[in-house]
């Protein structure tokens, strides 16, 4: 049985399009709700909400800064989820956070609170395949899609096992490194997309290191779409407000549609 994230991404693929998943740090400022709605309206297929963690080892300086700012502003897992619960976003939501945030609340309680807030999927970037069982049991029971990362360092056997356990989509890590914008798209991005497409029927999305609409188009060509994070968060940290963020998302959407 597939969830809302997978359905949305499959629908986009069946219509011949490329998917756009947008990451944004949760409760970064008072514009949080407005920004989520603007990102959905600008053409995101799925929105990933980051629940900030004090020690985000998979994140580069921009998302780290956003994490710190949100935490200083009083962001907590519970208040982010309750703010989401009150929103009618119109596209499926996923949460991205680190394992300790879920473990500290209790894996079952965390999974259930995602479901209650209307969040369909969850990504825990410090949870490799070997540590997935406990969380996945809790998430499956709550009807939450556990989206796993597939890295260029994995051999085909490993990538196959990761794809089998992933729900929603498979998140292909586009490069060796943490989140952040790079001047050029790494060749590993198209390579991991191609490898994953050969191994699974799940939607294959490439993220990490995709900073411009041109890079998004290039990465999406070999897969089913992209995840864009740092570029969006950078815009959120700028004075341009929700409209500025929406304009950027629209640029990505239009490039992928062209």
């Amino acid at each position, binding site marked *: 049985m597939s969830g809302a994230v997978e359905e949305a991404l499959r629908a986009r693929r069946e219509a011949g399009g490329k998917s756009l998943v947008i990451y944004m740090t949760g409760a970064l400022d008072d514009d949080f709700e407005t920004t989520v709605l603007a990102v959905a309206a600008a053409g995101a297929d799925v929105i990933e909400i980051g629940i900030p963690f004090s020690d985000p080892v998979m994140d580069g300086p921009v998302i780290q800064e956003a994490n710190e700012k949100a935490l200083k502003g009083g962001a907590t897992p519970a208040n982010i989820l309750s703010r989401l619960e009150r929103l009618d976003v119109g596209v499926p939501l996923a949460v991205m956070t680190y394992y*300790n945030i879920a473990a500290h609340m209790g894996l079952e309680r965390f999974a259930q609170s995602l479901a209650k807030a209307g969040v369909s999927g969850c990504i825990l*970037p410090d949870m490799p395949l070997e*540590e997935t069982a406990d969380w996945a049991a809790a998430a499956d029971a709550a009807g939450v899609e556990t989206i*796993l990362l597939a890295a260029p360092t994995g051999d085909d056997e490993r990538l196959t096992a990761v794809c089998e356990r992933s729900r929603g989509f498979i998140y292909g890590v586009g490069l*060796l*490194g943490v989140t952040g914008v790079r001047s050029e798209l790494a060749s590993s991005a198209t390579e991991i997309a191609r490898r994953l497409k050969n191994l699974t029927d799940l939607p294959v999305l490439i993220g990490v290191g995709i900073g411009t609409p041109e890079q998004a188009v290039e990465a999406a060509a070999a897969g089913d779409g992209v995840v864009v994070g740092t570029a969006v968060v950078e815009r959120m940290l700028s004075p341009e407000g929700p409209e500025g963020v929406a304009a950027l998302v629209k640029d990505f959407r239009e490039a992928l549609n062209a």
Partner: protein
Amino acid sequence: MELNENEALKPPDASGRFGDFGGRFVPETLMPACLELEKAFNEAWADPSFRKQLDDLLADYAGRPSPLTDCPNLSELLGCRILLKREDLNHTGSHKINNVLGQALLAQRMGKTRLVAETGAGQHGVATATAAALLGMECCVYMGEVDVERQKLNVFRMRLLGAEVRTALSGSRTLKDAINEAMRDWVATVEDSHYCLGSVMGPHPYPWMVRTFHEVLGSEARSQCQERLGTTPDVVVACVGGGSNAIGIFSGFADSPADLVGVEPAGGAAVGRGVPGVVHGSRSFLMQDEFGQVLEAESISAGLDYPGVGPEHSFLAASGRARYESVTDTEVVEAFQLLSRLEGIIPALEPAHALAWVSRERASLAGKTVLINLSGRGDKDVDQILELLEKEGRA
């Protein structure tokens, strides 16, 4: 005489767990490297030529075995017999070299050309830079901005040894953040770099591998005590940051009747003030807030200024085989001066924690034999203590 095979400290299970603690909570990108490292370590450890290479370096380069020193003056003052395991006399000035030589040789055997490390007090960074210089490897050490300031001497030593020192500016700008930066580096460089982790923490196989490399100090201490005392000591005490020097000495006595005591700083007492949590690759006791955000530690000692602890210590605490106590910065500064004055040995601030606990507990320790792991020497701390005592008008 082969005295012990460390029967009481078992290896972790296949998932890297000691009871409920440990595991491998790392980004998927790093998981193949953790599996490869585990396999390479197992093969190397079973290979007599690797063991000989390491033993030769430990003896001829690092100066092992380190002596066991009786402390007549301190013993008289405290009313118990104090013995020190002198890891301060190793090359580079601390126990850290045991682990680093093992990992550097292993990295070389795996075809890696670059070592990445984190450091708090700078002792692990200096040891890693030293091994890299010896083996002709590139070396990059991450150190929090606060520690770069308070351990200036070690920063210069690392640079002299040819290492690049990168300042970690995020979070508390101490050891925790240096580890974050080192892990981020490793995620990007895993193909040619080995992460030379400095304590019994991180994802499997690190806690177990680092312990294994430090067992040499525990088994030496066991035979030295046997020779000197004809028996094992009543109490074995060590400071605990991540817990590598402590697990090293505990490993020699875990199967003996000795009390095992780990001493944490009051401001970084993971076992004392933490609850189980997941950070830096494993599940262990961790100081965190009500939402699971990791708290910033606060300690005078850069090497112990860490909110977590290695998973095997959580297991030893939960099972009751070892206990964990804490001491304040003030008690540590007193102990630092006490050993200097009475025995002519200037300890590092880290093992001064172990001394401080013994000094405070002298009444309950009366008449006992107490073995303290003197994990490092205090040269690196002299500046910081001078400044502090001057400020208080006591220097």
